[in-house]
């Protein structure tokens, strides 16, 4: 049934695009993932080709300059433009070598991955520290962490990114990537802190009492007893938070960080394949997030042995 409904949905979308005369050009998309880059080999002086020997599609070209010094160079046989005994002038091309290079979509995806990984890592640390402060007995630590959480949760991420880039970026002279990562990390940290706090408070009081009655200090209790149980419980909401973080990282494209979203926009300006590229970009985000959720599901299963 599910498949039938999804199929009908896709079919109606297809019919709708037919109606507006859109020509789908999916064949234009792959080259933005991976393309062959050609580099031309030129002769740096006037000279003469001595010999050419070909092995496995590559040719070794030997040549000499006017004073008789000998050189050699390797190019791909298909691209060979010279023959033996030919006289060449400075700057003439001998042939070319090509290699596979990552296209803008791949680079953008790597950037998004890197941004989200860095922001998740720092966000988790900020969240852990803030979460612990939130349940601390110290009034100053507690109220400061509440203030931080309320300010960050109460303002839009887009505005925070602008503040980080235009205000802090200028005042502290930090680069756009650093500004982007810190904005994301501090944003995520506020939510992680609340999740961690909920986790700590969900561990029964009896656990702390048992640990303390065995002579463990408050710190040992936190490290060995409360935290392991709390982290296990908060894994599902934490996963949700990090998945949102991957998606929210698309907002840093507004400060000209070339992440997946911005690369998508750039590719569209040169292909006009608007629909295809946005669908592709969406799929790539889906790929990143589903890998993460599978990873966390796996960790969850491993931790479930003690249930």
């Amino acid at each position, binding site marked *: 049934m599910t498949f039938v409904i999804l199929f009908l949905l896709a079919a109606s979308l297809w019919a709708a695009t037919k109606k507006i005369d859109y020509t789908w050009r999916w064949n234009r998309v792959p080259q933005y993932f991976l393309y062959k880059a050609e580099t031309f080999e030129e002769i740096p002086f006037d000279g003469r080709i001595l010999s050419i020997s070909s092995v496995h599609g590559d040719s070794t070209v030997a040549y000499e300059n006017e004073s008789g010094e000998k050189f050699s160079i390797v190019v791909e046989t298909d691209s060979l433009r010279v023959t033996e005994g030919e006289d060449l002038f400075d700057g003439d091309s001998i042939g070319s070598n090509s290699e596979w290079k990552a296209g803008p979509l791949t680079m953008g995806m790597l950037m998004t991955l890197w941004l989200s990984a860095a922001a998740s890592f720092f966000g988790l640390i900020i969240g852990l520290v803030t979460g612990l402060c939130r349940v601390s007995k110290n009034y100053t630590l507690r109220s400061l962490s509440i203030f931080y959480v309320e300010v960050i949760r109460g303002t839009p991420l887009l505005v925070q990114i602008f503040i980080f880039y235009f205000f802090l970026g200028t005042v502290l002279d930090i680069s756009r990537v650093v500004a982007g990562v810190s904005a994301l990390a501090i944003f995520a940290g506020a939510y992680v802190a609340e999740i961690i706090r909920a986790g700590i408070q969900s561990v*029964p009081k*009896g*656990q702390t*009492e*048992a*640990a*303390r*009655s*065995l*002579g*463990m*200090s408050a710190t*040992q209790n936190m490290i*060995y*007893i409360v935290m*392991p*149980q709390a982290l*296990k419980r908060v894994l599902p909401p934490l996963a949700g938070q990090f998945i949102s973080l991957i998606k929210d990282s698309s907002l840093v494209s507004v400060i000209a960080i070339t992440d997946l979203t911005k690369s998508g926009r750039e590719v569209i300006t040169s292909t006009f394949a608007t629909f295809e590229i946005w669908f592709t970009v969406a799929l790539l985000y889906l790929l990143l997030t589903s890998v993460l959720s599978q990873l966390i599901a796996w960790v969850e299963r491993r931790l479930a*042995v*003690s*249930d």
Partner: protein
Amino acid sequence: MIKTIDLKKTFTGRGQTVYAVDGVTASVSPGEVVVIIGPSGSGKSTFLRCLNGLETFTSGHIVIDGVDLADRKTDLNKVRCEVGMVFQQFNLFPHKKVIENIVLAQMTVRKRDRQEAEEKARMLLEKVGIAEKEQEYPSRLSGGQQQRVAIARALAMDPKIMLFDEPTSALDPEMVGEVLDVMKNLAREGMTMVVVTHEMGFAREVADRVLFMDQGKLVEEGTPEHFFTAPREERTKLFLKQVL
């Protein structure tokens, strides 16, 4: 070994002040088994929890092995090493295997190495009769087995005193016996024990002395013989008539 002098613990909430423990003066000598009984809400558990500092008290003194808990310089963690506690709800660490439950505090608090701690843990599991369960997680054990692990965990710290807070109240009736047997053995070996319980049979058989508490006050104390056959106070007589 334990001495409390005019111990008071009050809770304030909603404008009311509740005297959970109201001027209890009592003492426990080394090797003695003291059973505290009384109706619910009489402050027996609160009194017991004050003895190892899980509950702070409002006024009075608790002297354990010569150390006054009312003294602010007292290191409570050190006192707690010497005072083991067993809870009504077992409170085993669910994320650790049985053996790890017993090894953890030995290593972190007593600074024993793993091998020594594991040997001690196995010896104690043998003693409480569940040596074969050492690699299980607590959730796979029955209530009675969990409580015996909890006793082994407390004993692993080599405490001088053991406190039991209604250790059999959360157990199915058929499992009460196995836990009481472990406690009886412990008493016979000369462990100093303070037990809050509703098991009158245990009190009669094992206790050296019985304390009866009501509304935070120590109403009556005496040997089980005296207590169960010829109580002096009216309140005690009424309570015994209801439970026996």
